[in-house]
Protein backbone atom coordinates (compact mmCIF):
# COMPACT_ATOMS: atom_id res chain seq x y z
CA UNK A 1 0.00 0.00 0.00
CA UNK A 2 2.70 2.44 1.06
CA UNK A 3 4.81 1.43 -1.88
CA UNK A 4 1.81 1.86 -4.14
CA UNK A 5 1.39 5.39 -2.85
CA UNK A 6 5.11 5.93 -3.36
CA UNK A 7 4.80 4.78 -6.94
CA UNK A 8 2.00 7.26 -7.60
CA UNK A 9 3.93 10.00 -5.81
CA UNK A 10 7.02 9.21 -7.86
CA UNK A 11 4.88 9.46 -10.95
CA UNK A 12 3.66 12.87 -9.81
CA UNK A 13 7.23 14.04 -9.22
CA UNK A 14 8.24 12.85 -12.68
CA UNK A 15 5.27 14.71 -14.17
CA UNK A 16 6.16 17.93 -12.38
CA UNK A 17 9.79 17.52 -13.41
CA UNK A 18 8.60 17.47 -17.01
CA UNK A 19 6.66 20.67 -16.39
CA UNK A 20 9.62 22.25 -14.61
CA UNK A 21 11.93 21.33 -17.46
CA UNK A 22 9.35 22.73 -19.84
CA UNK A 23 9.69 26.10 -18.13
CA UNK A 24 13.34 26.06 -19.04
CA UNK A 25 12.65 25.22 -22.63
CA UNK A 26 11.39 27.79 -25.05
CA UNK A 27 7.90 29.23 -25.11
CA UNK A 28 5.67 26.73 -26.94
CA UNK A 29 3.63 29.60 -28.36
CA UNK A 30 6.58 31.69 -29.57
CA UNK A 31 5.89 32.32 -33.26
CA UNK A 32 8.87 33.01 -35.47
CA UNK A 33 7.71 33.46 -39.05
CA UNK A 34 11.24 33.87 -40.41
CA UNK A 35 12.04 30.31 -39.28
CA UNK A 36 9.11 28.39 -40.67
CA UNK A 37 9.38 24.62 -41.23
CA UNK A 38 13.13 24.56 -40.60
CA UNK A 39 14.93 21.23 -40.46
CA UNK A 40 16.26 19.97 -37.11
CA UNK A 41 19.25 22.02 -35.90
CA UNK A 42 21.10 22.81 -32.68
CA UNK A 43 18.69 25.60 -31.76
CA UNK A 44 15.63 23.51 -32.68
CA UNK A 45 16.41 19.82 -32.02
CA UNK A 46 13.29 18.71 -33.92
CA UNK A 47 12.97 21.70 -36.21
CA UNK A 48 10.07 24.17 -36.30
CA UNK A 49 6.47 24.02 -37.46
CA UNK A 50 4.57 26.09 -40.03
CA UNK A 51 4.51 29.07 -37.65
CA UNK A 52 8.16 28.74 -36.65
CA UNK A 53 7.31 27.29 -33.24
CA UNK A 54 9.85 24.90 -31.72
CA UNK A 55 8.56 21.35 -32.18
CA UNK A 56 10.56 19.86 -29.28
CA UNK A 57 9.14 22.42 -26.85
CA UNK A 58 5.60 21.79 -27.97
CA UNK A 59 6.19 18.06 -27.65
CA UNK A 60 7.29 18.39 -24.01
CA UNK A 61 4.42 20.73 -23.14
CA UNK A 62 2.05 18.35 -24.87
CA UNK A 63 2.75 15.74 -22.21
CA UNK A 64 1.01 17.79 -19.52
CA UNK A 65 -2.66 17.10 -20.35
CA UNK A 66 -1.99 13.39 -20.91
CA UNK A 67 -0.16 12.95 -17.62
CA UNK A 68 -2.80 14.90 -15.72
CA UNK A 69 -5.55 12.65 -17.07
CA UNK A 70 -3.52 9.53 -16.28
CA UNK A 71 -3.06 10.64 -12.67
CA UNK A 72 -6.76 11.45 -12.21
CA UNK A 73 -7.95 8.24 -13.88
CA UNK A 74 -5.61 5.94 -11.93
CA UNK A 75 -6.43 7.48 -8.57
CA UNK A 76 -10.16 7.70 -9.27
CA UNK A 77 -10.47 4.28 -10.91
CA UNK A 78 -8.61 2.51 -8.10
CA UNK A 79 -10.56 4.34 -5.40
CA UNK A 80 -13.98 3.77 -6.97
CA UNK A 81 -13.05 0.21 -7.89
CA UNK A 82 -12.00 -0.64 -4.33
CA UNK A 83 -15.21 0.83 -2.96
CA UNK A 84 -17.47 -0.90 -5.49
CA UNK A 85 -15.54 -4.17 -5.23
CA UNK A 86 -15.97 -4.09 -1.46
CA UNK A 87 -19.69 -3.47 -1.88
CA UNK A 88 -20.08 -6.33 -4.38
CA UNK A 89 -18.23 -8.70 -2.06
CA UNK A 90 -19.60 -7.66 1.32
CA UNK A 91 -22.88 -5.73 1.02
CA UNK A 92 -26.34 -7.32 1.39
CA UNK A 93 -28.15 -8.62 -1.66
CA UNK A 94 -30.11 -5.79 -3.38
CA UNK A 95 -27.24 -3.28 -3.15
CA UNK A 96 -24.69 -5.90 -4.10
CA UNK A 97 -26.64 -6.98 -7.18
CA UNK A 98 -27.23 -3.39 -8.25
CA UNK A 99 -23.53 -2.50 -8.06
CA UNK A 100 -22.58 -5.72 -9.82
CA UNK A 101 -25.04 -4.99 -12.64
CA UNK A 102 -23.69 -1.46 -12.86
CA UNK A 103 -20.12 -2.76 -13.16
CA UNK A 104 -21.00 -5.26 -15.88
CA UNK A 105 -22.95 -2.59 -17.76
CA UNK A 106 -20.16 -0.04 -17.39
CA UNK A 107 -17.77 -2.53 -19.01
CA UNK A 108 -19.81 -2.33 -22.22
CA UNK A 109 -19.83 1.49 -22.44
CA UNK A 110 -17.63 2.64 -25.33
CA UNK A 111 -15.18 5.15 -23.89
CA UNK A 112 -15.23 7.37 -26.94
CA UNK A 113 -19.02 7.57 -26.91
CA UNK A 114 -18.92 8.43 -23.20
CA UNK A 115 -16.37 11.12 -24.00
CA UNK A 116 -18.56 12.55 -26.77
CA UNK A 117 -21.67 12.64 -24.57
CA UNK A 118 -19.80 14.13 -21.63
CA UNK A 119 -18.23 16.75 -23.90
CA UNK A 120 -21.73 17.74 -24.99
CA UNK A 121 -22.79 18.09 -21.37
CA UNK A 122 -19.71 19.49 -19.64
CA UNK A 123 -17.79 21.02 -22.52
CA UNK A 124 -14.48 19.63 -23.75
CA UNK A 125 -11.53 19.54 -21.40
CA UNK A 126 -9.12 17.47 -19.37
CA UNK A 127 -11.70 16.81 -16.65
CA UNK A 128 -14.25 15.63 -19.22
CA UNK A 129 -11.76 13.15 -20.68
CA UNK A 130 -10.94 11.90 -17.19
CA UNK A 131 -14.63 11.49 -16.35
CA UNK A 132 -15.24 9.59 -19.60
CA UNK A 133 -12.42 7.18 -18.79
CA UNK A 134 -13.66 6.77 -15.23
CA UNK A 135 -17.12 5.75 -16.48
CA UNK A 136 -15.71 2.39 -17.53
CA UNK A 137 -12.31 2.08 -15.87
CA UNK A 138 -13.58 1.47 -12.31
CA UNK A 139 -15.51 -1.63 -13.34
CA UNK A 140 -12.62 -4.05 -14.01
CA UNK A 141 -11.02 -3.08 -10.68
CA UNK A 142 -14.31 -3.62 -8.88
CA UNK A 143 -14.93 -7.03 -10.46
CA UNK A 144 -11.34 -8.15 -9.90
CA UNK A 145 -11.42 -7.07 -6.27
CA UNK A 146 -14.82 -8.67 -5.69
CA UNK A 147 -13.63 -11.98 -7.17
CA UNK A 148 -10.53 -11.83 -5.00
CA UNK A 149 -12.61 -11.14 -1.91
CA UNK A 150 -14.70 -14.20 -2.65
CA UNK A 151 -11.62 -16.35 -3.00
CA UNK A 152 -9.78 -15.02 0.03
CA UNK A 153 -12.73 -15.37 2.37
CA UNK A 154 -12.35 -19.12 2.05
CA UNK A 155 -8.67 -18.96 3.01
CA UNK A 156 -7.57 -20.02 6.47
CA UNK A 157 -5.53 -16.87 7.10
CA UNK A 158 -8.54 -14.66 6.48
CA UNK A 159 -10.69 -16.67 8.85
CA UNK A 160 -7.86 -16.59 11.38
CA UNK A 161 -7.59 -12.82 11.17
CA UNK A 162 -11.37 -12.61 11.63
CA UNK A 163 -11.19 -14.88 14.63
CA UNK A 164 -8.41 -12.73 16.07
CA UNK A 165 -10.77 -9.77 15.87
CA UNK A 166 -9.04 -7.80 13.10
CA UNK A 167 -11.22 -5.02 11.66
CA UNK A 168 -12.25 -5.29 8.03
CA UNK A 169 -10.14 -2.33 6.81
CA UNK A 170 -6.98 -3.62 8.42
CA UNK A 171 -7.61 -7.16 7.16
CA UNK A 172 -8.17 -5.74 3.70
CA UNK A 173 -4.89 -3.88 3.89
CA UNK A 174 -2.97 -6.80 5.31
CA UNK A 175 -4.37 -9.72 3.30
CA UNK A 176 -6.36 -8.42 0.36
CA UNK A 177 -4.36 -5.67 -1.27
CA UNK A 178 -1.00 -7.47 -1.42
CA UNK A 179 -2.76 -10.26 -3.30
CA UNK A 180 -4.60 -7.81 -5.51
CA UNK A 181 -1.66 -5.71 -6.67
CA UNK A 182 -0.41 -7.83 -9.57
CA UNK A 183 -3.82 -7.94 -11.24
CA UNK A 184 -4.58 -4.33 -10.37
CA UNK A 185 -1.18 -3.20 -11.63
CA UNK A 186 -1.75 -4.84 -15.00
CA UNK A 187 -5.18 -3.19 -15.21
CA UNK A 188 -3.69 0.16 -14.23
CA UNK A 189 -1.03 -0.17 -16.90
CA UNK A 190 -3.66 -0.76 -19.57
CA UNK A 191 -5.78 2.10 -18.18
CA UNK A 192 -2.90 4.56 -18.19
CA UNK A 193 -2.10 3.68 -21.79
CA UNK A 194 -5.74 4.03 -22.80
CA UNK A 195 -5.88 7.42 -21.10
CA UNK A 196 -2.93 8.76 -23.09
CA UNK A 197 -4.42 7.49 -26.33
CA UNK A 198 -7.90 8.84 -25.60
CA UNK A 199 -6.54 12.30 -24.78
CA UNK A 200 -4.74 12.29 -28.11
CA UNK A 201 -7.77 10.93 -30.00
CA UNK A 202 -10.07 13.58 -28.57
CA UNK A 203 -7.48 16.24 -29.24
CA UNK A 204 -7.33 15.03 -32.82
CA UNK A 205 -11.09 15.33 -33.34
CA UNK A 206 -10.98 18.78 -31.78
CA UNK A 207 -12.45 18.02 -28.37
CA UNK A 208 -9.39 18.60 -26.20
CA UNK A 209 -9.28 21.47 -23.74
CA UNK A 210 -8.13 24.30 -25.95
CA UNK A 211 -6.95 23.77 -29.48
CA UNK A 212 -4.31 26.47 -29.04
CA UNK A 213 -2.61 24.57 -26.22
CA UNK A 214 0.11 22.13 -27.20
CA UNK A 215 -1.39 18.66 -26.94
CA UNK A 216 -0.26 15.64 -28.97
CA UNK A 217 -3.58 14.85 -30.61
CA UNK A 218 -4.28 18.50 -31.38
CA UNK A 219 -0.75 18.81 -32.81
CA UNK A 220 -1.33 15.82 -35.09
CA UNK A 221 -4.57 17.41 -36.23
CA UNK A 222 -2.95 20.80 -36.78
CA UNK A 223 0.01 19.37 -38.67
CA UNK A 224 -1.89 16.74 -40.66
CA UNK A 225 -1.73 18.76 -43.88
CA UNK A 226 2.06 18.61 -43.63
CA UNK A 227 1.93 14.82 -43.46
CA UNK A 228 2.92 14.62 -47.11
CA UNK A 229 5.61 17.29 -47.13
CA UNK A 230 7.01 17.39 -43.57
CA UNK A 231 6.16 14.00 -42.03
CA UNK A 232 8.36 14.71 -39.00
CA UNK A 233 5.75 17.17 -37.67
CA UNK A 234 3.14 14.41 -37.50
CA UNK A 235 5.41 11.51 -36.64
CA UNK A 236 6.98 13.22 -33.61
CA UNK A 237 3.74 13.50 -31.58
CA UNK A 238 2.68 10.01 -32.68
CA UNK A 239 5.97 8.57 -31.46
CA UNK A 240 5.77 10.57 -28.22
CA UNK A 241 2.30 9.18 -27.61
CA UNK A 242 3.36 5.61 -28.34
CA UNK A 243 6.50 5.90 -26.23
CA UNK A 244 4.64 7.20 -23.17
CA UNK A 245 1.93 4.55 -23.52
CA UNK A 246 4.48 1.76 -23.69
CA UNK A 247 6.41 3.30 -20.79
CA UNK A 248 3.32 3.48 -18.57
CA UNK A 249 2.42 -0.10 -19.44
CA UNK A 250 5.87 -1.32 -18.54
CA UNK A 251 6.21 0.82 -15.43
CA UNK A 252 2.89 -0.16 -13.87
CA UNK A 253 3.16 -3.80 -14.83
CA UNK A 254 6.64 -4.02 -13.40
CA UNK A 255 5.59 -1.86 -10.49
CA UNK A 256 3.00 -4.47 -9.68
CA UNK A 257 5.55 -7.25 -9.72
CA UNK A 258 7.76 -5.17 -7.41
CA UNK A 259 4.78 -4.82 -5.10
CA UNK A 260 4.02 -8.51 -5.07
CA UNK A 261 4.20 -9.89 -1.52
CA UNK A 262 7.46 -11.55 -0.63
CA UNK A 263 7.69 -15.27 -1.12
CA UNK A 264 4.94 -15.52 -3.70
Amino acid at each position, binding site marked *: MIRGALLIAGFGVAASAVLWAAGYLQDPHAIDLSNRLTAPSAAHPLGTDHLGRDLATRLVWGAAPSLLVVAIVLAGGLGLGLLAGGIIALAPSPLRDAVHWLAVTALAVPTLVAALVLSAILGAGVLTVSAALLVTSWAPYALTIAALFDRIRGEVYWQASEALGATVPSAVRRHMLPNAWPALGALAGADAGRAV*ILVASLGFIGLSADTGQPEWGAMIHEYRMFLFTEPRLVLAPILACTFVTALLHGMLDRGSSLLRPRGS
Partner: protein
Amino acid sequence: MTAAAVQVLGRLALSWLAVVTAAFVLLRLMPGDPVEVFLAQVNVGAGHEIVAAYRAQWGLDEPIATQFLRWLGGFVTLDWGVSFETGRPVAADFAARLPYSAAIGFGGMVLAVTGGFALGFFAAHRPGGPADMLSRVLAVAGQALPAFATGLVLLWILGVQLRWIDVFGGGFIERVLLPTLLVALFSLGSMSRLTRAGFVEVKGSPYYRTALAKGRSQAGALWHHGRAAGVLTLIAGLAPELTWIIGGTAVAEIVFGVPGVSERVVQAVNHRDYAILQPYIALVALWVALVMQGARFLRRTLDPRLP
Protein backbone atom coordinates in the same frame (compact mmCIF):
# COMPACT_ATOMS: atom_id res chain seq x y z
CA MET B 1 -36.78 -22.63 -26.46
CA THR B 2 -39.46 -19.95 -26.86
CA ALA B 3 -39.30 -19.19 -23.13
CA ALA B 4 -35.54 -18.78 -23.41
CA ALA B 5 -35.95 -16.51 -26.44
CA VAL B 6 -38.50 -14.37 -24.60
CA GLN B 7 -36.13 -14.12 -21.65
CA VAL B 8 -33.23 -13.06 -23.87
CA LEU B 9 -35.38 -10.48 -25.65
CA GLY B 10 -36.74 -9.19 -22.36
CA ARG B 11 -33.29 -8.77 -20.89
CA LEU B 12 -32.12 -7.07 -24.07
CA ALA B 13 -35.02 -4.60 -24.04
CA LEU B 14 -34.58 -3.90 -20.34
CA SER B 15 -30.87 -3.11 -20.48
CA TRP B 16 -31.38 -1.00 -23.60
CA LEU B 17 -34.15 0.97 -21.91
CA ALA B 18 -32.03 1.52 -18.79
CA VAL B 19 -29.10 2.93 -20.76
CA VAL B 20 -31.26 5.11 -23.00
CA THR B 21 -33.22 6.51 -20.05
CA ALA B 22 -30.05 7.29 -18.12
CA ALA B 23 -28.53 9.06 -21.13
CA PHE B 24 -31.71 11.04 -21.76
CA VAL B 25 -32.06 12.23 -18.18
CA LEU B 26 -28.34 13.04 -17.96
CA LEU B 27 -28.43 15.10 -21.14
CA ARG B 28 -31.52 17.05 -20.05
CA LEU B 29 -30.50 17.68 -16.44
CA MET B 30 -27.16 19.25 -17.22
CA PRO B 31 -26.73 22.99 -17.53
CA GLY B 32 -26.44 24.53 -20.98
CA ASP B 33 -29.69 25.08 -22.83
CA PRO B 34 -29.62 23.96 -26.49
CA VAL B 35 -31.80 26.94 -27.41
CA GLU B 36 -29.27 29.39 -26.01
CA VAL B 37 -26.40 27.53 -27.67
CA PHE B 38 -28.30 27.63 -30.96
CA LEU B 39 -29.13 31.32 -30.68
CA ALA B 40 -25.53 32.14 -29.80
CA GLN B 41 -24.49 30.09 -32.83
CA VAL B 42 -26.67 32.01 -35.27
CA ASN B 43 -25.68 35.19 -33.45
CA VAL B 44 -29.15 36.42 -32.58
CA GLY B 45 -29.83 38.28 -29.37
CA ALA B 46 -33.32 36.91 -28.92
CA GLY B 47 -36.01 37.96 -26.47
CA HIS B 48 -37.95 35.72 -24.15
CA GLU B 49 -40.74 35.04 -26.62
CA ILE B 50 -38.36 33.67 -29.26
CA VAL B 51 -36.57 31.47 -26.74
CA ALA B 52 -39.93 30.22 -25.50
CA ALA B 53 -41.09 29.59 -29.05
CA TYR B 54 -38.00 27.51 -29.81
CA ARG B 55 -38.34 25.61 -26.55
CA ALA B 56 -41.94 24.80 -27.46
CA GLN B 57 -40.98 23.81 -31.00
CA TRP B 58 -38.29 21.43 -29.77
CA GLY B 59 -40.52 20.16 -26.98
CA LEU B 60 -38.15 21.34 -24.24
CA ASP B 61 -40.87 23.09 -22.21
CA GLU B 62 -42.55 19.88 -21.06
CA PRO B 63 -41.65 17.77 -18.00
CA ILE B 64 -38.77 15.37 -18.57
CA ALA B 65 -40.96 12.27 -18.30
CA THR B 66 -43.29 13.53 -21.04
CA GLN B 67 -40.32 14.51 -23.21
CA PHE B 68 -38.81 11.09 -22.75
CA LEU B 69 -41.99 9.16 -23.54
CA ARG B 70 -42.62 11.29 -26.61
CA TRP B 71 -39.02 10.79 -27.75
CA LEU B 72 -39.15 7.03 -27.09
CA GLY B 73 -42.39 6.68 -29.04
CA GLY B 74 -40.90 8.68 -31.88
CA PHE B 75 -37.69 6.65 -31.87
CA VAL B 76 -39.49 3.33 -32.05
CA THR B 77 -41.72 4.53 -34.90
CA LEU B 78 -38.66 5.93 -36.73
CA ASP B 79 -39.84 9.52 -36.26
CA TRP B 80 -36.61 10.93 -34.89
CA GLY B 81 -37.47 14.62 -35.01
CA VAL B 82 -35.41 17.37 -36.58
CA SER B 83 -31.86 18.46 -35.83
CA PHE B 84 -31.69 21.49 -33.52
CA GLU B 85 -28.82 22.81 -35.54
CA THR B 86 -29.79 22.32 -39.18
CA GLY B 87 -33.55 21.76 -38.92
CA ARG B 88 -33.33 18.71 -41.19
CA PRO B 89 -35.00 15.41 -40.25
CA VAL B 90 -32.64 13.29 -38.18
CA ALA B 91 -33.88 9.95 -39.48
CA ALA B 92 -33.10 10.87 -43.09
CA ASP B 93 -29.65 12.12 -42.04
CA PHE B 94 -28.95 8.85 -40.23
CA ALA B 95 -30.33 6.74 -43.06
CA ALA B 96 -27.80 8.29 -45.44
CA ARG B 97 -24.90 7.89 -43.03
CA LEU B 98 -25.63 4.67 -41.21
CA PRO B 99 -24.66 2.28 -44.05
CA TYR B 100 -21.04 3.52 -43.86
CA SER B 101 -20.80 3.23 -40.09
CA ALA B 102 -22.57 -0.11 -39.99
CA ALA B 103 -20.36 -1.53 -42.73
CA ILE B 104 -17.19 -0.37 -40.97
CA GLY B 105 -18.28 -1.42 -37.49
CA PHE B 106 -19.85 -4.75 -38.43
CA GLY B 107 -17.20 -5.61 -41.01
CA GLY B 108 -14.46 -4.67 -38.56
CA MET B 109 -15.95 -6.85 -35.86
CA VAL B 110 -16.45 -9.87 -38.13
CA LEU B 111 -12.91 -9.54 -39.50
CA ALA B 112 -11.40 -9.13 -36.03
CA VAL B 113 -13.32 -12.09 -34.59
CA THR B 114 -12.62 -14.50 -37.44
CA GLY B 115 -9.05 -13.32 -38.02
CA GLY B 116 -8.31 -13.23 -34.30
CA PHE B 117 -9.74 -16.71 -33.86
CA ALA B 118 -7.65 -18.16 -36.68
CA LEU B 119 -4.50 -16.39 -35.49
CA GLY B 120 -5.15 -17.51 -31.92
CA PHE B 121 -5.51 -21.13 -33.06
CA PHE B 122 -2.20 -21.10 -34.94
CA ALA B 123 -0.50 -19.22 -32.08
CA ALA B 124 -1.61 -21.91 -29.64
CA HIS B 125 -0.69 -24.68 -32.08
CA ARG B 126 2.93 -23.54 -32.17
CA PRO B 127 3.76 -21.34 -29.18
CA GLY B 128 6.69 -19.10 -30.07
CA GLY B 129 6.12 -19.66 -33.78
CA PRO B 130 5.47 -16.95 -36.38
CA ALA B 131 1.73 -16.82 -35.69
CA ASP B 132 2.35 -16.46 -31.96
CA MET B 133 4.87 -13.66 -32.55
CA LEU B 134 2.49 -11.86 -34.90
CA SER B 135 -0.37 -12.10 -32.46
CA ARG B 136 1.81 -10.76 -29.65
CA VAL B 137 3.09 -7.85 -31.76
CA LEU B 138 -0.45 -6.98 -32.84
CA ALA B 139 -1.71 -7.12 -29.26
CA VAL B 140 1.01 -4.79 -27.99
CA ALA B 141 0.68 -2.43 -30.95
CA GLY B 142 -3.08 -2.36 -30.52
CA GLN B 143 -2.67 -1.04 -27.01
CA ALA B 144 0.26 1.29 -27.49
CA LEU B 145 -0.45 2.95 -30.84
CA PRO B 146 -3.18 5.55 -31.31
CA ALA B 147 -5.51 4.27 -34.03
CA PHE B 148 -6.07 7.64 -35.68
CA ALA B 149 -2.33 8.17 -35.99
CA THR B 150 -1.90 4.74 -37.53
CA GLY B 151 -4.62 5.60 -40.00
CA LEU B 152 -2.84 8.81 -40.94
CA VAL B 153 0.45 7.00 -41.45
CA LEU B 154 -1.39 4.39 -43.52
CA LEU B 155 -2.78 7.15 -45.72
CA TRP B 156 0.68 8.62 -46.08
CA ILE B 157 2.29 5.32 -47.05
CA LEU B 158 -0.47 4.06 -49.36
CA GLY B 159 -1.44 7.39 -50.85
CA VAL B 160 1.81 9.31 -51.08
CA GLN B 161 4.70 6.87 -50.97
CA LEU B 162 3.20 4.00 -52.95
CA ARG B 163 0.39 5.89 -54.70
CA TRP B 164 -1.86 2.84 -54.49
CA ILE B 165 -4.93 4.79 -53.41
CA ASP B 166 -6.39 8.17 -54.15
CA VAL B 167 -6.46 9.84 -50.73
CA PHE B 168 -9.01 12.48 -51.64
CA GLY B 169 -10.98 10.40 -54.08
CA GLY B 170 -13.28 8.72 -51.62
CA GLY B 171 -14.12 5.51 -53.44
CA PHE B 172 -15.06 2.22 -51.84
CA ILE B 173 -11.46 1.37 -50.86
CA GLU B 174 -10.82 4.66 -49.07
CA ARG B 175 -14.21 5.01 -47.44
CA VAL B 176 -15.06 1.47 -46.43
CA LEU B 177 -12.23 -1.01 -46.89
CA LEU B 178 -9.37 0.89 -45.23
CA PRO B 179 -11.41 2.06 -42.20
CA THR B 180 -12.72 -1.49 -41.74
CA LEU B 181 -9.20 -2.89 -41.86
CA LEU B 182 -8.01 -0.27 -39.37
CA VAL B 183 -10.78 -1.14 -36.92
CA ALA B 184 -10.15 -4.87 -37.31
CA LEU B 185 -6.38 -4.56 -37.02
CA PHE B 186 -6.56 -2.85 -33.64
CA SER B 187 -8.78 -5.54 -32.20
CA LEU B 188 -7.19 -8.54 -33.88
CA GLY B 189 -4.25 -8.80 -31.48
CA SER B 190 -6.12 -8.98 -28.22
CA MET B 191 -8.80 -11.24 -29.73
CA SER B 192 -6.10 -13.67 -30.85
CA ARG B 193 -4.54 -13.61 -27.37
CA LEU B 194 -7.90 -14.45 -25.83
CA THR B 195 -8.47 -17.33 -28.25
CA ARG B 196 -4.94 -18.58 -27.72
CA ALA B 197 -5.49 -18.73 -23.97
CA GLY B 198 -8.55 -20.95 -24.50
CA PHE B 199 -6.71 -23.33 -26.83
CA VAL B 200 -3.60 -23.48 -24.64
CA GLU B 201 -5.74 -24.55 -21.68
CA VAL B 202 -7.05 -27.46 -23.72
CA LYS B 203 -3.49 -28.50 -24.58
CA GLY B 204 -2.87 -29.28 -20.91
CA SER B 205 -5.98 -31.43 -20.58
CA PRO B 206 -6.07 -35.25 -20.42
CA TYR B 207 -8.57 -35.60 -23.28
CA TYR B 208 -6.20 -33.76 -25.63
CA ARG B 209 -3.35 -36.11 -24.70
CA THR B 210 -5.68 -39.07 -25.19
CA ALA B 211 -6.58 -37.83 -28.66
CA LEU B 212 -2.87 -37.53 -29.49
CA ALA B 213 -2.24 -41.04 -28.14
CA LYS B 214 -4.98 -42.35 -30.37
CA GLY B 215 -3.02 -41.05 -33.32
CA ARG B 216 -4.66 -37.74 -34.21
CA SER B 217 -2.43 -35.01 -35.54
CA GLN B 218 -1.68 -32.14 -33.15
CA ALA B 219 -3.56 -29.60 -35.22
CA GLY B 220 -6.49 -31.97 -35.74
CA ALA B 221 -6.79 -32.81 -32.07
CA LEU B 222 -6.47 -29.17 -31.04
CA TRP B 223 -9.13 -28.10 -33.51
CA HIS B 224 -11.54 -30.90 -32.69
CA HIS B 225 -11.27 -30.66 -28.90
CA GLY B 226 -10.24 -27.05 -28.46
CA ARG B 227 -12.43 -24.98 -30.71
CA ALA B 228 -15.32 -24.74 -28.24
CA ALA B 229 -12.91 -23.56 -25.53
CA GLY B 230 -11.38 -21.05 -27.93
CA VAL B 231 -14.76 -19.63 -28.85
CA LEU B 232 -15.81 -19.48 -25.21
CA THR B 233 -12.79 -17.50 -23.99
CA LEU B 234 -13.11 -15.22 -26.99
CA ILE B 235 -16.75 -14.52 -26.18
CA ALA B 236 -16.03 -14.02 -22.50
CA GLY B 237 -13.62 -11.21 -23.35
CA LEU B 238 -15.77 -9.64 -26.04
CA ALA B 239 -17.20 -6.67 -24.09
CA PRO B 240 -14.09 -4.49 -23.96
CA GLU B 241 -13.30 -5.35 -27.58
CA LEU B 242 -16.77 -4.34 -28.68
CA THR B 243 -16.44 -0.97 -26.98
CA TRP B 244 -13.20 -0.46 -28.87
CA ILE B 245 -14.86 -1.32 -32.16
CA ILE B 246 -17.51 1.37 -31.65
CA GLY B 247 -14.98 4.01 -30.63
CA GLY B 248 -12.60 2.83 -33.33
CA THR B 249 -15.29 3.17 -35.99
CA ALA B 250 -15.74 6.81 -35.01
CA VAL B 251 -11.99 7.43 -35.14
CA ALA B 252 -11.63 5.66 -38.49
CA GLU B 253 -14.52 7.66 -39.96
CA ILE B 254 -12.88 10.91 -38.97
CA VAL B 255 -9.39 9.97 -40.16
CA PHE B 256 -10.54 8.70 -43.55
CA GLY B 257 -13.19 11.38 -44.03
CA VAL B 258 -16.04 8.89 -44.20
CA PRO B 259 -19.47 10.58 -44.28
CA GLY B 260 -20.73 8.28 -41.51
CA VAL B 261 -22.75 8.76 -38.36
CA SER B 262 -19.84 9.45 -36.01
CA GLU B 263 -18.68 12.42 -38.02
CA ARG B 264 -22.12 13.98 -37.65
CA VAL B 265 -22.19 13.18 -33.93
CA VAL B 266 -18.89 14.94 -33.27
CA GLN B 267 -20.33 18.00 -34.98
CA ALA B 268 -23.51 17.67 -32.89
CA VAL B 269 -21.50 17.56 -29.66
CA ASN B 270 -20.23 21.07 -30.23
CA HIS B 271 -23.77 22.36 -30.79
CA ARG B 272 -25.48 20.39 -28.00
CA ASP B 273 -27.70 18.95 -30.68
CA TYR B 274 -29.57 16.42 -28.49
CA ALA B 275 -31.78 15.45 -31.41
CA ILE B 276 -28.70 13.86 -33.03
CA LEU B 277 -27.02 12.59 -29.86
CA GLN B 278 -30.01 10.67 -28.51
CA PRO B 279 -30.64 8.39 -31.49
CA TYR B 280 -26.90 7.81 -31.69
CA ILE B 281 -26.74 6.69 -28.06
CA ALA B 282 -29.85 4.58 -28.57
CA LEU B 283 -28.37 2.89 -31.65
CA VAL B 284 -25.02 2.23 -29.97
CA ALA B 285 -26.80 0.83 -26.91
CA LEU B 286 -28.92 -1.40 -29.14
CA TRP B 287 -25.87 -2.68 -31.00
CA VAL B 288 -23.96 -3.39 -27.78
CA ALA B 289 -26.98 -5.07 -26.17
CA LEU B 290 -27.58 -7.21 -29.27
CA VAL B 291 -23.98 -8.41 -29.48
CA MET B 292 -23.70 -9.03 -25.75
CA GLN B 293 -26.95 -11.00 -25.59
CA GLY B 294 -25.98 -12.90 -28.71
CA ALA B 295 -22.64 -13.76 -27.12
CA ARG B 296 -24.39 -14.82 -23.92
CA PHE B 297 -26.75 -17.04 -25.87
CA LEU B 298 -23.84 -18.59 -27.78
CA ARG B 299 -21.98 -19.28 -24.55
CA ARG B 300 -24.97 -21.07 -23.05
CA THR B 301 -25.36 -23.17 -26.16
CA LEU B 302 -21.67 -24.10 -26.35
CA ASP B 303 -21.09 -24.67 -22.66
CA PRO B 304 -23.82 -26.74 -21.03
CA ARG B 305 -22.11 -26.33 -17.64
CA LEU B 306 -23.16 -22.69 -17.46
CA PRO B 307 -26.39 -22.11 -15.55
